[in-house]
């Protein structure tokens, strides 16, 4: 219908012929008459986005998710979700003639055989790494600026849910190719599921269709979850995330003209739409470059997974790293209560993420309970303005980062040529100590930054020290530059007026230590400055 309308417009006589804008206008008018788009469109086009760069971090996640969807559709055209065994006849010589699963062989074929296959697969994998990385960075921004406070608790919960779903989705995708490393990850997950007291064994057997490796149903099941179930939930939640964002409007940093009741920034049209479009190209471009030039997960080298094969130095993708690290540093403690045994995998791999994610989800309420703050907040806090929250956040981040690093104990030991046992013990202890040290430093840092006021991050104004022929020194301020603040004059101490008495006293002191001997410092100084004689010029900072 819209096309017909355009045709009609084109056929109009030159007199009636409208400009391009007019044409678009009449098309949109036609659509508005039928769908009522103008109202929603106005809300959309008038949506104000604050300009601060940290507000763009979530968009990295959004656009890498778009890349994930597009590349994922391509991959699903070639991937065969089946554990059925077949003989490999493809191009990769070291595998030829060996028995592999359909899932593995189709992934190898799509990597080495299908045109653009490897590029798309690598882009998909890099985009997954970047998607979760961007979510983590975005979450840090929200946390440290207090953007989760009332009325945005729900959006925070949706965001944390997206993070959890993203991790699960990434893990499933990592497991689908059925190569040696992903199979090792699946084996681990079977044991972790089994370690849940009472229900664990039943759960694991149900998911895998029997004892490990199951009856071959795990790959089709993971496939459906990976390409249909979880992406659908993620897409819906992203919709809700952005819908709430429009409904509740953006937060903003405090500043001139910014209040709890307005939002200062660029409207969607004209302005932000172009900015965000450009940013989307940047995200896609970076992912495409990584996909083209950096190899990720070369499964043809890893070979088909078989339960009796294992490789050393197997790690999960980075977002599962903290769980792997927790498993690695967990001492081999096991608890038994009558007939119920809790294997030691339960604590790092089930209990730890359970606690961490519950704290994440509940954090807005925990904080409101502690601070008894029930007001609405639309202005952000700088991290320094809330030292306790910043310290807690920094400590938690460090704890997770230490766990994450612990998943690379073997790699660290190898590259630093340190004993693996020492690295392991370092992480067993440091993981619990360093977070407190970092939190204390962060707290102190916030307080110092508060004290520094507006001077923080600015440079001190340079002082020029002059020395005249008599060997006397004078301090003079350099011309002020942008962003300077005074050390001597305005902020630190008032300059002391040099009275004759003081001058005499100073001279006495100078005599004592053998520097300078003039009696009338003041006069000489004036004379010296007036005459414009060349002294020796020393410029020093402060």
């Amino acid at each position, binding site marked *: 219908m819209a096309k017909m309308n355009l045709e009609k417009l084109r056929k109009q006589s030159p007199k009636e012929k409208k400009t391009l804008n007019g044409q678009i206008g009449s098309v949109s008018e036609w659509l508005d008459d039928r769908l009522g788009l103008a109202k929603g469109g106005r809300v959309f086009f008038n949506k104000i986005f*604050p*300009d*601060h*760069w940290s507000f*763009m*971090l979530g968009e*990295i996640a959004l656009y890498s998710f778009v890349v994930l969807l597009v590349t994922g559709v391509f991959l699903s055209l070639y991937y065969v979700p089946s554990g059925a065994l077949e003989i490999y006849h493809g191009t*990769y010589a*070291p*595998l*030829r*003639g*060996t028995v592999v699963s359909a899932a593995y062989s189709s992934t190898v074929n799509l*990597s*080495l055989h299908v045109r653009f296959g490897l590029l798309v697969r*690598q882009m998909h994998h*890099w985009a997954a*790494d*970047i998607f979760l990385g*961007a979510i983590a960075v975005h979450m840090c921004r929200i946390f440290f600026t207090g953007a989760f406070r009332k009325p945005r608790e729900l959006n925070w919960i949706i965001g944390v849910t997206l993070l959890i779903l993203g991790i699960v989705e990434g893990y499933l995708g990592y497991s689908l190719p059925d190569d040696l*490393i992903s199979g090792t990850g699946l084996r681990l997950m079977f044991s972790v599921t089994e370690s849940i007291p009472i229900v664990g064994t039943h759960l694991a057997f149900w998911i895998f269709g029997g004892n490990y490796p199951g009856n071959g149903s795990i790959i089709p099941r993971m496939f459906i979850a990976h390409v249909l179930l979880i992406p659908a939930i993620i897409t819906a939640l992203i919709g809700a995330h952005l819908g709430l964002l429009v409904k509740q409007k953006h937060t903003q940093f405090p500043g001139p003209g910014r209040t709890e009741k307005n939002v200062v920034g660029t409207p969607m049209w004209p302005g932000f739409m172009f900015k965000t479009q*450009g*940013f989307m190209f940047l*995200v896609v471009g*970076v992912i495409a470059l*990584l996909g*083209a*030039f*950096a*190899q990720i*997960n*070369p499964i043809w*080298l*890893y*070979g088909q997974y078989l339960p*009796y094969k294992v*490789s*050393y*130095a197997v*790690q*999960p*993708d*980075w977002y599962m*790293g903290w769980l792997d690290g927790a498993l690695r540093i967990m001492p081999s403690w096991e608890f038994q209560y009558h007939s119920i045994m809790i294997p030691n995998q339960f604590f790092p791999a089930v209990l730890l993420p359970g606690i961490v994610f519950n704290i994440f989800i509940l954090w807005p309420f925990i904080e409101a309970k502690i601070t008894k703050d029930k007001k609405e907040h639309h202005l952000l806090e700088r991290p320094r303005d809330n030292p306790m929250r910043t310290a807690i956040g920094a400590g938690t981040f460090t704890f997770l980062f230490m766990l994450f690093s612990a*998943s*690379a104990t073997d*790699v660290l*030991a190898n590259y630093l*040529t*340190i*004993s*693996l*046992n*020492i690295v392991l*013990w370092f992480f067993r*202890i*440091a993981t619990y*100590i360093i977070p*407190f*040290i970092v939190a204390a430093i962060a707290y102190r840092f916030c307080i110092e930054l508060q004290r520094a006021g507006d001077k923080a991050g600015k440079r001190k104004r340079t002082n020029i020290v002059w020395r005249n022929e008599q060997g006397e020194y004078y301090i003079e301020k350099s011309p002020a530059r942008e962003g300077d603040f005074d050390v001597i004059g305005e902020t630190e101490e008032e300059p002391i007026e040099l009275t004759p008495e003081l001058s005499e006293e100073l001279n006495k002191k100078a005599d004592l230590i053998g520097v300078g001997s003039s009696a009338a410092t003041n006069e000489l100084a004036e004379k010296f400055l007036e005459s414009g004689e060349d002294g020796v010029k020393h410029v020093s900072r402060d």
Partner: protein
Amino acid sequence: MNSKKKTVKTFVSVIAVVALSLIFSLLESNSYNSNTPNFRTSSYSANNVSAVSQTTSSTPTTSTSTSVSSSVKETSSFGSNHLNSNVKSDNKKKKFVGPLLYQGSNVRATYNQVKEGQTLFDESCASCHGAQASGSDRAPNLVGLGPATVQFWVSTGRMPLSNPIIQPIRKPVKFTQAQILDIVSYVSSLAPGGVLIPNIKGYNSSSIANGASLFDINCAGCHTITGAGDALASGAYAPSLHQATPEQVAEAIRTGPANMPRFNPGVLTNSQVNSLVKYVTQGIQKPDNAGGWDMGGIGPVAEGFIGLLIGVGLLMLGAFWVGDRQ
């Protein structure tokens, strides 16, 4: 005051824990060190009987004086000091029977090789392994180890050792091929036995797929699936396989250097070793490396590092560029 006390308390506890961890690590390394001598003496004692008798009976200087009596021995069997006998005599050269070097071949080391080897050994090895190669408190006995072991350690540059550490590292080789063979000949001439240099001539025609499968089962557990190598317990490590020559791969399989287990012909047949040699020198060292830079072949650790640092980092810079900084 209170807060000060608290900070002092936390500081003290931090120091205490760090000290504890240090003590732990020291204990660990101590226990390792105390183990090693036991390990050495027990594993090398089998050869010590002959070694001790050699060291007590003769040093190079004394053996020249007793050359006439020992010259009879040389022709019939391996003796440690046969070379120090009257070298000028051509008859002895003819009578000399060198040690066998290669598996499945009758090639023996020549008199000159053994002689050259002894000179090189005295120059570069004897200071630790002893003039009779019978070992010392800092180096193991080499008598009876066989050609493959000696060739592996010298041809990978691990010997001579520059720095006595738990596990020697691969270095640029100090000798030419011929010189290495001389040293091998000399050490092998000291006593019979040990592993001969494996015959890998036919490896290029064996199955690479078979090798890949054998590698997954037998080697990837330590050397990793890409052959990049990784750290093992207590300072030991599985080295990278990317520089190994075909001969060295086979020698390592058969002799089990350092922490590596020894795979004798009952475990891996000669043709299986050949398949492994082919896979390591082709599939591992020259992989079909589609997809760009492999980042050292250490898998998701490097990938996560690049993904976060380059990927997310670059995009954050992009956001910083596009957005407002205030």
